[in-house]
């Protein structure tokens, strides 16, 4: 039974045959680790000798574990099916104890929970549709509760957990500065470079700064920032609240008389509404810087010309609508992140499932909201 022992050599099986009566002598160690080996040996012996009766002698067995004992019982059953009488003889006290805990009836006992057969294709589609509707109703309910909680906070500003708001502002905003900055510079670079390749054919390089600043401020700045924040913070909110549900912390809040939405969701939503527009301005700025790098190094424009051209294109209206968009995206990301977190019921798998769902749903809602903004703003102008 030592570590690293060669189990295939730790047992011996010998036999004697007389008058179609086979005696099999087992000696050494019989365990789960050599179970396949000794099972084959015993069956081979029986196949060769074709006996009418088999005795398995345990007097020299020094170690027997439960899996090996189970296997020997199954061999006995196999012999019975072959019309061979078999018995265990000279069982040691230890072996007797092990055999005594194996209840053969439980091995064939029907499971008290049968595995559900998969539903038909149409039932699955129906279920998915019902689930989608339920999900929609739950989101609407949550939005209602969240708006009530926000209104309550607005009317009772002292109830707001300012410390939590500052904490989430740091987490979602300050901690996100490097990645938002880097991605925005790269996006600005890419747009400038791609537009330069096209515009140089008609000698319209001077429009590259306008294109970059227009695209960044109106669309890409808010959208890219929102997608990054959804990946970073929306998922974190869902995982945090989900884990709290699993640990019964949310139940504890309810029992202590706190509204979990007001306690957990409101600070996150307010923090995000404050910080995401600021991050968007920051992203716009770095996007323009990205374009500037291409403009100065590739288009022979001076930094002054590039920036003047950029600023010419951007209107105050565009910046304001960009900020409004960012605030709406922030509310959507935080809201859906918290709602998905509250949906967790049990276990690590549920947390993973709803964290993923929080990110996917947030990105979907961002795109839907952006489409609505695009159409509305077109008519407003």
């Amino acid at each position: 039974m030592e570590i690293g022992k060669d189990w295939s050599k730790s047992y011996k099986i010998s036999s004697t045959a007389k008058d179609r009566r086979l005696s099999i002598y087992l000696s050494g160690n019989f365990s789960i680790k050599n179970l396949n080996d000794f099972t084959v040996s015993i069956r081979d012996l029986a196949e060769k000798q074709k006996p009418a009766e088999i005795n398995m002698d345990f007097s020299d067995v020094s170690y027997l574990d439960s899996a090996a004992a189970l296997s020997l019982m199954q061999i006995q059953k196999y012999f019975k099916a072959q019309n061979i009488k078999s018995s265990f003889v000279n069982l040691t006290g230890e072996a007797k104890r092990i055999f005594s805990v194996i209840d053969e009836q439980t091995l064939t006992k029907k499971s008290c929970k049968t595995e559900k057969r998969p539903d038909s294709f149409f039932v699955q589609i129906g279920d998915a549709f019902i689930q989608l509707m339920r999900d929609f109703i739950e989101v609407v309910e949550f939005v209602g509760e969240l708006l009530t909680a926000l209104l309550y906070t607005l009317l009772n500003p002292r109830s707001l957990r300012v410390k939590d708001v500052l904490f989430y502002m740091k987490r979602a905003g300050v901690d996100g500065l490097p990645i938002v900055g880097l991605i925005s510079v790269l996006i600005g670079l890419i747009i400038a470079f791609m537009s330069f390749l096209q515009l140089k054919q008609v000698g319209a390089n001077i429009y590259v700064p306008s294109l970059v600043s227009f695209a960044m401020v109106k669309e890409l700045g808010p959208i890219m920032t929102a997608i990054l924040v959804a990946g970073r913070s929306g998922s974190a909110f869902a995982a945090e609240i989900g884990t709290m549900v699993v640990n019964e912390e949310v139940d504890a809040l309810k029992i202590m008389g706190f509204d979990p939405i007001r306690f957990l969701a409101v600070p996150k939503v307010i923090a995000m509404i404050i910080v995401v527009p600021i991050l968007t301005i920051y992203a716009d700025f770095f996007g323009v810087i990205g374009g500037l790098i291409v403009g100065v190094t590739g288009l022979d424009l001076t930094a002054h010309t590039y920036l003047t051209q950029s600023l010419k294109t951007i209107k105050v209206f565009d910046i304001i609508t960009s900020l409004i968009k960012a605030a709406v995206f922030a509310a959507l990301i935080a809201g859906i992140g918290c709602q998905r977190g509250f949906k967790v019921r049990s276990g690590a798998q549920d947390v993973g499932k709803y964290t993923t769902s929080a990110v996917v749903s947030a990105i979907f809602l961002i795109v839907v909201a952006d489409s609505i903004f695009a159409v509305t703003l077109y008519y407003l102008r």
Partner: protein
Amino acid sequence: MPPSKNESIIEVKNLAARFDDNIVFENVNFQVRKGEILVVVGESGCGKSTLLKIMIGLHKPYAGSVFFQGMDIVRADEDQLQAYRQNIGVLFQSSALFSSMRLRENIALPLQEYTDLDAAMIDSIIRMKLAMVNLAGYENHYPSELSGGMKKRAGIARAIALDPLVLFFDELSAGLDPVTAVELDDLIIKTNEALGTTMVIVTHELESICNIAHRVVMLDKSARGIIASGTPQELKEKSKDPRVRSFFLRQMPEA
């Protein structure tokens, strides 16, 4: 199974544990005899769980050794530790069943990983182990569908899947009602008697200790080590140490 008088299966030698500069315990020495149920007791923070984690190879001690069949697991390489872990089973405080898997899959995991048994044999072993812990028929249940006591029993079924030589239990009856705790104690005794498995149990449940322990090792926070060892009866009746007496008689130490 009665413990072997002389043959030790685990030997803890001069073991010391620290967290940063805080000494948890030092100079801890004891042996675990083959087939015995050894219970490690002591107040919260005395290092019981740390000791257990060192013994199962999850934590490295500050100093000392833990010998299993002559191999020092503190200095063992990853392959040796892997071989050691196939010879031990652990029941964690929370049972640590994988929530995304049915009981069948939880128990099958070590069998599929470490043996070359066919699916039918693995299924028979799963059913046998579940029957041993009185959970016959529950193979298709998820852990979330079980009560606390059932989760512990399912955890034991998984821990004994490979018929380990030593079983370790961390806070065996934590969070269980007294009736379920007694049922679990009976199961421990039955498993020890039937399979002859050596058991190391960390607990501070007095009733459990008196029910199941062949021998007790008592750690103390202020002494930073072992202050007593012996059978529960010996410690309860013969010990003169006020800390031991207070623990076993559940009263304040004399001033």
